[in-house]
């Protein structure tokens, strides 16, 4: 087994190292939950203060872009989960892992491309706070301030994820990185799933309010 190549100091056994890496990333994910939690709290408070304005503003978002993007990210989580679980078995899944990592990165890129088209449409409709904002209620501008911040920060997280996954895929395909039982894949997978979970919460808060009227 190429376990020896993966073991780093201070670990002496790979299972222990994997456990340590997994705990480390979960602690980081907990801090990310709090980071986005604070942003979502700001959204919550302003929405409680002005529910009608938020509903009107949310209607201006493009629900098709949002829904398709959510489906894209959910699918990327599927391919990432298969890649991580296949790599964790330590059996000969190398091609499967590399292809699933490539699919994950490609789906992440697709999300960013679709988001780009959506941002262009938002800019064309002048949907940013300031003079010339199309809706009358001031709180609607707050909704869109939060929209740009939330989706922008999420997009940065996703870009980092795409870079990490692409690196694993390339190095794995070139044979320069052993993939079997590699803790890096586990860690990257958990980070990727968190980016997906964050979007799962952003979707009903940004795209779905105000649709029933």
């Amino acid at each position, binding site marked *: 087994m190429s376990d020896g190549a993966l073991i780093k100091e201070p670990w*002496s*056994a790979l*299972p*222990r190292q994997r*456990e340590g890496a*997994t*705990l480390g990333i*979960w*602690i980081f*994910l*907990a*801090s*990310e*939950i*709090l980071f986005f*939690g*604070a942003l979502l*709290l700001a959204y*919550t*408070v302003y929405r*409680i*203060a002005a529910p009608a304005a938020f509903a009107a503003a949310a209607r201006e978002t493009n*629900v098709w872009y949002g*829904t398709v993007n*959510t*489906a894209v990210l*959910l*699918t990327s*989580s*599927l391919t*990432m*989960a*298969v890649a991580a*679980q*296949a790599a964790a*078995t*330590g*059996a000969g*899944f190398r091609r*499967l892992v590399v292809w699933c990592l490539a699919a994950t990165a490609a789906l992440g890129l697709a999300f960013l491309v679709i988001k780009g088209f959506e941002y262009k449409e938002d800019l064309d409709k002048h949907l940013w706070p300031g003079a010339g904002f199309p809706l009358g209620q001031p709180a609607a501008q707050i909704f869109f301030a939060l929209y740009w911040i939330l989706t922008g920060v999420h997009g940065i997280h996703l870009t980092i994820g795409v870079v990490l996954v692409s690196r694993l895929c390339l190095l794995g395909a070139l044979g320069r990185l052993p993939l079997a039982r590699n803790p890096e894949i586990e860690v990257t*997978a*958990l980070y990727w*799933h968190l980016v*997906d*979970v964050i979007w*799962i*919460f952003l*979707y*009903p*808060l940004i*795209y*779905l*309010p105000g*649709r*029933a*009227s």
Partner: protein
Amino acid sequence: MSGPGPGGSAPAAAASRRRGAVLIVLASLVATLLRRALLRRGPDGPSSPARPSEPPRGAARRDRESREEVPSARALWRRNGLVWLALLALLLTSFGAAYLPLGALNTVVGLLIALTKAGLVAVLFMELRRSGALMRLAGGAGLLFALVLFALTLTDFLTRLSGG
């Protein structure tokens, strides 16, 4: 949170303090129950007995891993594919439900579906069920403190902005 807020009278402030206390107690109760429920399941599932005289942890884990059956690629795709189908179904449900005139329930339904989807990703894709209790504790700590953040802030705003 001591004393009446701006423009509030003493009885109204007392009422909002009571409501705040109730919210905090409820939140801690939920969090405790959640933690206990999550920690009861060890890495081998709910039926695993306590392991008082364990060999060095690295060796024991290696034995467990080699005794486990290695799943086939098809099994991996089927197991995760089912979760993916459930997630897509929930996505379509939340999308459709948003267009139904449910009033305040629209938000509740949307958030409940989001919670379910997140739960599926966390337990099944992120394998929280198979990870040790330590991982669940770490992730749970993030959730707990986010809950505290929301609960404490909303005791102020829910009672202030809605005219209470």
